[in-house]
């Protein structure tokens, strides 16, 4: 008799736990406006990434097409994956001195792990992390970028 | 036991071995021949009872190949490092300790895979991660001109 009562009790208890679970799902079913889906391409206009979000390495330029990069190559040394290559060139300053400046700051986005070490190491703050995250392209070659814009020059007063 | 107690106890117990206090733990280096017996003793002795092997590392010391065992006693909560080295670089071989600590069986397979250290009496010595055609990449003399780009 005792085992029979236990048998019945186990059935009822089991059913009860199932009902408790069903209550949880039902709660969400009947409040469909609380959904968590983000409809991505549609919400693109309102989608703002956090300011620290690491999407890619960029080199900000002023409106005079000036940047802060001296071409020192510290970012290149700090990069663990070899995704940065600095190509520098020599120019003659007005004073007649030879000076090495940046020619091309090449950035391989395809190899980058976005670890932030280059940005952290940059002594002049020339490169920062951009928030763009839509990097899909049809050709892998497009992932290799030159960060300094053509014709740009280093801003006045950047300490070398 | 504290490190100092452990060191003195080990020194008096294992006279053959070379025992020193490392940066954190007591380090004991034994010869390849004494390895298995030492491992058994370390686990069996009541005052030591190192029953938990938490890390097994194969290291290529350039002139010799070695295995580093990090041991802990669950009961006494002391930690020590056991090292065994073999000078044979061509076909290095050490005794397995997988019969002492089961987990060593798999860590030894990893060491065999990556460093090419052979373990005698190991029941299932196969490569862990890599294909048979690979060399042993964690050896210092490993060269791979295709896949490794030196900067």
């Amino acid at each position, binding site marked *: 008799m005792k085992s029979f009562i236990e048998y019945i009790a186990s*059935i009822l208890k089991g059913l009860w736990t*199932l009902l408790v*679970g*069903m209550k*949880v*799902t*039902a709660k*969400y*079913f009947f409040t*469909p406006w*609380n*959904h*968590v*889906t983000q*409809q991505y391409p549609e919400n693109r206009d309102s989608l703002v990434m956090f300011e620290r979000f690491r999407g890619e390495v960029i080199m900000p330029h002023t409106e005079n097409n000036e940047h802060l990069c001296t071409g020192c190559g510290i970012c290149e040394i700090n990069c663990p994956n070899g995704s940065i290559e600095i190509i520098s060139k020599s120019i003659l300053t007005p004073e007649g001195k030879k000076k090495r400046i940046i020619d091309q700051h090449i950035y391989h986005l395809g190899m980058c792990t976005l670890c932030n070490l280059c940005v952290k190491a940059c002594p002049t703050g020339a490169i920062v992390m951009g928030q763009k995250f839509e990097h899909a392209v049809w050709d892998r070659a497009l992932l290799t970028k030159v960060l300094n814009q053509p014709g740009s020059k280093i801003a006045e007063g950047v300490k070398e | 036991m504290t490190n100092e107690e452990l060191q003195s106890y080990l020194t008096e117990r294992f006279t053959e071995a070379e025992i020193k206090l490392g940066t954190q733990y007591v380090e004991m280096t034994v010869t390849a021949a004494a390895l298995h017996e030492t491992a058994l003793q370390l686990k069996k002795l009541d005052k030591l009872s190192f029953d938990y092997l938490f890390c097994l590392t194969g290291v290529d010391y350039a002139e010799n190949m070695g295995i580093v065992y990090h041991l802990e006693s669950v009961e006494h909560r002391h930690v020590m490092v056991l090292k065994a080295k073999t000078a044979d670089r061509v076909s290095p071989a050490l005794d397995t300790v997988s019969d002492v600590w089961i987990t060593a069986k798999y860590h030894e397979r990893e060491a065999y895979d990556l460093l090419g250290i052979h373990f005698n009496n190991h029941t299932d010595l196969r490569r862990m991660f890599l294909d048979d055609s690979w060399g042993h990449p964690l050896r210092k003399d490993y060269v791979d001109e295709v896949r490794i780009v030196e900067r």
Partner: protein
Amino acid sequence: MAFNIYDFTTLTHSIHVGLAESFSPVVATTIEWVIVGVSYLLFVALFGLFLVYAERKVCAAFQQRLGPMRVGPWGLLQTIADFIKLLMKELIMPRKADWFLYNLAPFIVIIASFMAIAILPFAPGLQSFDFDIGIFYLTAVSSVGVIGILIAGWSSNNKYSLIGAMRSGAQILSYELSVSLSLLTMVIFAGSMQFSTIVEGQRDAWFIFSGHIPAMIAFIIFLIAGTAETNRGPFDLAEAESELVAGFHTEYSGVKFAMFFLAEYINLFIISAVAATVFLGGWMPLHFGNLESFNHVMDFIPPVVWFFGKVLFVIFVIMWFKWTFPRLRVDQILTLEWKYLLPINLVNILLMALVVLTKFHF
């Protein structure tokens, strides 16, 4: 009676008379067959598509998602797009599969479902054939599908498929018992196996109300066993994706997969429709003993709406199960059947017999 406006008998009868007048009897019967067959096919295809869509939306709502939203407004055309995709997909067959059985299996499964659907009364006069052992026929036919599943699993030459098929076999054979016994309980109460009689018997009160405790127990058991018979979660062992990849239909692609898929949803519909018919009054409106005005208002809702409303309710409950519970293990499925459902069912039949004998019902 108000719901005679919605009676289909006159319509079907006039079609029959019209055909019989213009053609010879053989031709007329053939045309009738074709009409009936085509309308069932159309119904199944459309309702199947709708059920797939409904399942996806319902599960999305349970999971705080939106579900399909891209194809058509609110993703309404999603299943049609999916179906077109399945039609265009390449049919792949494993090299060492049994060619004949491999291709036969989806047809068996889907034909079994079609056979079962024929017996269901959708509305007065809207039932393709109505004979006196309707429930018996239904239980017989609905277990034919498992042969298709077994064949599919065996002929695919895939170990996962085989395990899935064997699980499915064990499961359906066991749960067939519970389905039949819980229906038997209601047959005792209704005093007939004919669907039209069963529906007529619920004119004043649905069986689940008039049969009170034993009917409710039978209803719960029928829901559980019915869910198990359609291979749906939490009893989806035959296609348990985290264990067997896709179970018995792992190796099927394209249209053949679509047939299994469709059959699953038709079976869901059949089980729900049977539950609605036997327990919830079929197309009968909701009536309360002597509330004349209330009953009258209820009569204005067409029987088809009543029927599909009830069916959709039961389908929703079964979906609710699926999207809430973890899957059972194979031995637990058998334990549940043989140690719980079967004894309860047998006791319940006795109880029902007592209720019928003592007339202790409404």
